[in-house]
């Protein structure tokens, strides 16, 4: 089940990026997306260890470039979401590659796919909200919000680190 989902998500990631860049007449980037997508796909089909993080970063950079070139945000979000799914499934596949097919493995795969689908869908939907709901805020307020989010993230990371230290 995981290999099929993985191959599908890689095809969709590279397909969306390619299609979006073709519409912008950026044929070089579209070709690069095709080459990288095919390489990733081939490695996964041949069940070889792929540099999944490199592929993930490559498509992420293309999504950011697309956003900077004013490509439709939902399309870029979709590409990024599939890129994230591909990266995650590629890592997951590497972890369970040596496991023998059994009920335990099937259960693990189903649970993982379910959790991943929910997480990615929520992330995609939440990201769509600011696309359709436009609120005009002061740049300073915007900066403060960003800073607050970053501080929150930093605090949670520090908390997690301390928790890990105390548990060990």
């Amino acid at each position, binding site marked *: 089940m995981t290999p099929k989902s993985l191959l599908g998500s890689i095809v969709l990631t590279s397909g969306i990026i390619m299609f979006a860049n073709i519409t912008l007449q950026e044929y070089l980037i579209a070709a690069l997306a095709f080459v990288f997508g095919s390489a990733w796909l081939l490695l996964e089909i041949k069940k070889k260890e792929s540099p999944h*993080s490199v592929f993930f970063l490559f498509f*992420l950079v293309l*999504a*950011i470039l697309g*956003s*900077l070139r*004013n490509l439709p*945000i939902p399309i*870029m*979000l979709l590409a*990024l*979401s599939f890129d*994230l799914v591909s990266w*995650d499934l590629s*890592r*997951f596949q590497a*972890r*369970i590659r040596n*496991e*023998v097919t059994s009920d*335990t*493995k099937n*259960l*693990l795969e189903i*649970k*993982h796919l379910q*959790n*991943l689908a929910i*997480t*990615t869908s*929520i*992330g*995609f939907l*939440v*990201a769509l909200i*600011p*696309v359709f709901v436009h609120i005009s805020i002061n*740049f300073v307020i915007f*900066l403060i919000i*960003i800073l607050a*989010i*970053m501080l929150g*993230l930093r605090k*949670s*990371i520090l908390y*997690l*680190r301390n928790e*890990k230290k105390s*548990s060990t």
Partner: protein
Amino acid sequence: MKTSFMLILSLIFGIVILGTITLKSSVVILAIPLMAYLFAAIFRRPEALNLTITREIYPDFAPQGAPITVTVTVLNEGSLIDELLVDDILPAGITKIDGKSSIISALETQGKIKLEYTIEAQRGEYRGIEVAVYAADFLRFFELSFIYRTALHLIVHPHYPKLDRIKIRPPQTHGFAGPIPARQGGTGVDFWGVREYQTGDSQRQINWKLAARSNQDLYVNVFEQERIADIGLIVDARQRANIVTHSGSLFEHSVHAAAALAENFLDDGNRVSLLLYGSGMSRVISGYGRMQRYRILRELSKATLSVNYALESLEYLPTRLFPAKSQIVFVSPLLPDDISVILKMRAHGYAVIVISPDPISYEYALSQDVSSTAYRIASAERNFILSRLRQSGIQTVNWVVSQPFELVIRDTLTRLPLVGHDQTGRKG
């Protein structure tokens, strides 16, 4: 926290900073799916593990090389675990031959996972195998790892061949019937002598030929009584007496031989004891039967070579542990200093058999250089040691370990010993 977690975190920061610099909200929005991904990992991270791990091993007392089935059951008594990796860490000396000793699975509350695999192990006693457990969230950003130690007692005893009956003649035997000639007249199989007929003697025992020659006297045949004996096995575990090479150790052969001898003597109903002389003095006191076989094999399974400067010489061999005039079987590659101690044992009235795995041929089998001067000198020295022992009435078996032990024993110890003992397992 793993590298992938740090990667996502850095990407979120990077994207937000880039969006702020370029004043493009469309770029900042791209950080949202990554944030959702990160928060999902934080939300699902494993809090604490509450696992019960049990292990079953069948059989828990097996010969070296026999397949042993291991079953590990993991029961989750805590909350749901998205990804659980259970890895049974096999100790040195154990090899997996079938099945899988690790599994990755999702484990619900009160859920169970079972690992079943087959191992084979080298001789030894194994106590407690460690199980490494890694619990993680489904994105594997946070991981908790624990090492569980499961109670286990696996004894892998040496694999030994079945020997033909070894015929011994110790000076003293026990009162119970057995296979060893007791040097006393009575009921038995072998002819011992004749005596005058006494009232109550069976007519079947009358020696009619002798009676016909004598003048009205009757004589009866007397047979040699057969009884059991006390046998003390001594295994030399001194490092300096043994040879260890990259391909194995001569001591292993000594252990296998001792196991085969113990089995053989116990099968005949004798009382057998064991002494491992080397690192210390591990001992199994005299006993009979299956329980004694188990005790001896357990002790032999634990036997290792080691250096103990106090026991470098056989001088401190506690022969008093063995009953007077009993049979002693000494399994050792032999050192020149050992001769005097073995001769002393003989002088104290013990019947001594020396089974000596040949260290010279064992070591030179690896180099194949049998024509060297060193080999010839070493062989001459060993022949001198063995001949000194034989001259003193000690049954000596020079065992070239490339030959099967059972064949060497068949050639040397399956006949009753004569007055002068000259036995060798090596021809030529």
